[in-house]
């Protein structure tokens, strides 16, 4: 099933990957090829087959709720592109 230009734009917006017109044209072709390859899966009979999310099948792994110190604030903020007064700084979310 080939993807339309609009669909590629829509996916690009959902994923926030900032596509140029050139990207859209290229990805439209490449993603369509890949999705076409996926079509083969529809031929597999999976009636009554449960999904596997991961192979280990561990469930509800829990630990004791013991308070522990976190990393020092300076260390956590050391990679922050912008910071102010010990906080991450971002542009206004609500204009």
């Amino acid at each position, binding site marked *: 099933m080939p993807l339309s230009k609009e669909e590629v734009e829509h*996916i690009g917006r959902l994923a926030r990957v900032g596509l140029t017109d050139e990207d859209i044209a290229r*990805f439209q072709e490449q993603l369509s090829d890949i999705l076409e390859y996926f079509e083969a899966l529809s031929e597999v009979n999976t009636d009554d087959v449960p999904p596997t999310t991961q192979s280990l099948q561990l469930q509800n*792994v829990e630990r004791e709720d013991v308070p522990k110190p976190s990393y020092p604030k300076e260390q956590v903020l050391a990679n922050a*592109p912008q910071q102010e007064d010990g906080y991450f700084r971002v*542009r206004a979310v609500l204009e």
Partner: protein
Amino acid sequence: MDSQTIHYLTIHEAHDLLRRREVSARELMEATLTRVSETEERVRSYVSLTEELALRQADEADRRLTNGDNFSPLTGVPGAIKDVICTDGFRTTCSSRMLENFVPPYNAHVMEQLLSAGLVMVGKTNMDEFAMGSSTENSAFFPTHNPWDLDRVPGGSSGGSAAAVAAGEAVYALGSDTGGSIRQPAALCGIVGLKPTYGRVSRYGLVAFASSLDQIGPMTRDVTDAALVLNAIAGHDPRDSTSAPIETPDFTAGLTGDIKGLRLGVPKEYFVEGMDANVRRTVETAVRKLEELGATVDWDVSLPSTPHALACYYIIAPSEASANLARYDGVKYGFSYQEGEGMWDNMEKTRQFGFGDEVKRRIMLGTYALSAGYYDAYYLKAQKVRTLIRREFDAAFERYDALVTAVTPTTAFKLGEKTQDPLQMYLSDVCTIPVNIAGLPAISLPCGFVDGLPVGLQVIGKPFDEATVLRVAHAYEQATDWHTARPSL
């Protein structure tokens, strides 16, 4: 020990010399750095070299070895770390513009393990960006070259780790394997690469790509070395909730060379359409060698869902990636575009300029597969096919102790050969992907050459039965000398 061979020692050979104090860890590290300075310009295995740290670590290792206590088989042996594994205080880039200047505030679990074992870290190795790729050409910085033929790819995504070990630029390396990223480059570079069972090695501090598939493992010059590194990095870690709460055996214990009576199966679906005839012949010859060594081989095993594994993988892995990579928003760490019209614009441009094409392609594939209206047809369907693939393996392992296959359909391809056609690139992982889907352990080991390029043999085992995988591989290695061949560089 002359300088021509010192950089090609195995871990166990180096350990014997170190323990007897016939060579010091510093001499070993200096020989490695000399080798790096001779070859790195052509091979380009490393994103960062950590020479100063390495020499400090080597001196510390020498103290431990001289005092004669608190040392392990890895103490003082130069190793390389794939740049997807967090190293406290040392840049961890994932070969991405997004993390070009990221310095982790903590060590990955495997780093803690290796440091306490006495790691001497040569540097951080190049990879496909965020481990997405099969040739290391998706590195945002530069491609790595195959030491056996510099015009060819080393495979990927752990191509830098594979090339470093093959070129004598490190004695061993860590890689990570989501769909073949340890085994495929190991095969193409003529070294040993082991993907442990999902859950055997903690993923804490491994930058996440596809969390239900990712696993860290050793890349080494022989099978004994792979067992030694696995001994050091395996074990339960409560910080990774998918780390298996089970005992770690001594993985070297079963390396007896004896495989008499072991039952091996050759699944015919792995001889895929388009497989190079000489690669096929080489692998078949290797399996016959296992037969000569006393294993019983069933050449007619069928795992009928195998042809669907690739599509299954390229739905599951990008879906998980699209969620994992949502964290790169330019706020907490990493590249951050600041000149936009507002928060959303900045975030979008951060990702536009921070991610390369393959990463964007996979994020988009995953976003699409998980989006309303397509979830059942793609993601849920793939998860169900995953169950079928695992069931077929489980049934096969009732009859066989291990399965043997090719690792790759061809030898190393030329740089640039597949970069314009992502689907062709994906097909180079066709023999390794089913193993990740089912969470099994598997090794790639050298089993011959076609036109001067290495070919790998894959041994796949039952969950948590790395011991048998290593035993089969080791027996083959003892009976052949492919693993001692070195590229002329």
